[in-house]
């Protein structure tokens, strides 16, 4: 089982920039991209079919036809992705949208464009770790993508076999 990270961003250049900045994670988790919500749902289906888990979504706020916030809200009712951590990557979410994202989509983090790559990576790492911790997954297969020191807590009560 691999952890999957979904980048939902309609603008190619931004998507590519995100992908490149998140490249350090590529060898340890599954990086997926979608330019619209429909594709995003396909990706989720594919992730699920492969036995992987969607752990984190980086969603743009403005998307064709819908808003990233609406997508994140809809995720909460999708049993395949309801536990996924969520980061809103945006340049222009207004207060109302942000409030909705936090209250209804249980948004975990908010990243303003332009982002700092180190901070973004650190945030992704934290969120992946939180996902693993909240689902009590075995952190070892994903350890390089996680905050290792924090993930070690999960091993404390594991025991020797």
């Amino acid at each position, binding site marked *: 089982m691999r952890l999957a990270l979904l980048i939902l961003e309609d603008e190619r250049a931004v998507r590519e920039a995100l992908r*490149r900045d998140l490249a350090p994670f590529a060898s340890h988790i599954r990086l997926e*991209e979608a330019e619209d919500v429909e594709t995003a749902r396909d990706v989720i289906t594919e992730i699920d079919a492969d036995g992987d888990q969607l752990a984190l979504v980086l969603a743009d706020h403005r998307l064709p036809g819908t808003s990233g916030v609406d997508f994140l809200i809809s995720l909460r009712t999708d049993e395949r992705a309801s536990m996924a951590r969520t980061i809103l990557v945006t340049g222009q979410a207004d207060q109302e949208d942000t409030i909705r994202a936090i209250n209804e989509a249980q948004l975990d983090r908010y990243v303003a464009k332009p982002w700092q790559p180190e901070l973004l990576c650190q945030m992704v790492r934290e969120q992946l770790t939180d996902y693993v911790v909240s689902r009590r997954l075995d952190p070892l297969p994903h350890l390089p993508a996680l905050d290792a020191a924090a993930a070690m807590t999960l091993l404390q009560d594991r025991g020797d076999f």
Partner: protein
Amino acid sequence: MTAPASPLDGCGRRDERNAEVAGPPWCHALVIAPPPLAATIAEDLARGLSGLLAVTCTPDAEAAVSRIAAAPDWIVPLILMVATEVPIDDQLRILDQEPALRTASLLLLTDRAWHEDVTLAVDQNRLQAVIHAPWTTGTLAWLARAQVTRWLGANRPQDPQTQQLVAPDGRPMAPPESDLLRLLELETMDVATQLLAGVERVLGPCARLRLPAGTRLIQEGVDVDAVLVVLKGRVALDRAAPSGDLRLHHDSTGAVVGLLSLARQQRAFFTARATTEVEVVHLSFEQLDRALAVDPSLGAAMAAVSIRALANRLQRADQLQIEKTRLNQALERERQELSRTLHQLEQARLELVEQARFAMLGELAAGIAHELNNPVAAMLRATTYVGEDLERVLASHPQGALARSVFEAERERAPRSTREERAIRRHLEQALGDPALAQRLFEAGIEEPERARALTADPARLELVEAAAGIGSALRNLEVASRRMCELVTSLRTYSRPKGQPVSGIDLHAGIEDSLRLIAHRLGRVELERHYGELPTIRCHPGELGELWTNLLANALDALDETGRIRLITDAPTPQAVRVRVQDNGRAIDPAILPRVFEPRFTTKQGAVRYGLGLGLAIARRIVEAHGGTIDLTSATGGTQVTVVLPVAGPPD
């Protein structure tokens, strides 16, 4: 004078014959009475009217009408009607069928104590006198003569017969019999002179006082104990008010000043002031009292003077009341007018504020655009230079050819949907069996499994390929981004670009077609319908209008998906205006933002500057308003329509 009362049923046969008493054959007094009484009345009337009218008797109103109808040249100044069972008003209505009878003076002879059937007669001013029966012989004749005289003076003043009866001013030649009425017919000054003459008869000669203009004859608030008989000159009545003296009466003052206050035994209500030089006689309360007591006939003169003064004053008051009402109405009208104007002013002010806001935004936008222009241009050039120099560097690299091909491929890579990209990556994953490696290779632009395998075997080459691909895609994104900024800067500059002189004789359709050609690449599979009507050529800024059409078309395209329909409709609703409508059948605009669609806001979608609901419509509005036209946008499920109306005459100067 005291003739025995004639019984009402006294005459009959003479009436049967329609006996006519002497007088001009076409001038008749009509007696409407039962036959016996009619004869008596006719006899009495004839006495007073001899030489003036013939008297004709009819038994009732119908008979009178048919009688008159039979003699169309008759003049009927007088009708004498005897009260019968038939209500007076009803009879009057019958009489009114004949125009000759409508103007006649009506005398009613009745023996009843009450009449409730004369409302119409009184209301229409048709009843001239009510005479009680039995009457004193001669009364009818006297009354009838007076009425006829008055009627003739009013209606037939030119008849020679009339001129004998009536004075040139239309009043009957014979003066009233009573002192009072006789005096009332005199000029005010004459009455005053007579009064003064009477007073002087009692008191001896009185001194004439000559006073200059401006002299106060009586003062407001001061006890009045004398009257002033004004023999010459004019006097005005003023009353002090907080805003200065208020002139209430001028010509209505009357000949005897102070009379009213004297009558009410109190302080003067007005200040009486001479407005010209006046000649007065001063009479104290006691002098006046003595004169009236000694010669009671002076009372009539006194009363006449007073009535004259009162009537003048009352008339003046009535005029003032009417004037006040009229002024109030005018005031109310003006008030409403003012309120309307105020509202319009407020609207205008709001519009001005709005315009000022947009103008300021425009200036700000233009300023930013100006500042951004140079760095953006430098950036755009720099991307080209980096690409060129990299190619030169690679030329000397041992693996240069490979790196260069990868670099160029990645730099030129056309956008693909993430779905396609994922499919390719999956394919690669399956071929390599290593998702992480497949991802890495895919990002380096390596999509063919054979090539991927070959590169995997040679990590150094793979590193190079990755780096070259990285630079390629970064450069491509940089270029796209700077181009977008360029577009945005251009849009911003356009937003407040100063314009030259408008050009006449422009064909709108040609301009629209130019714009369509410019955005042809974006039309794709969108269906375009042209419904061009006959348009006059117009005066305009053709370049700006081109921009307008481009913005509106781009806006419509944004609302559509890959397919859809845009309809262009042109017509001339009036000879002075042309109208262009751009309709699309795409997504409706959110009603919440509909009121703000013309405000300048920025939107970007899918990597390109889209005018959408952003700057595009704001520019469109500015252009249309600069042309003195109007732009409207309606949007509902099923599509959006933008309507632009432009004056043929072009922008206002």
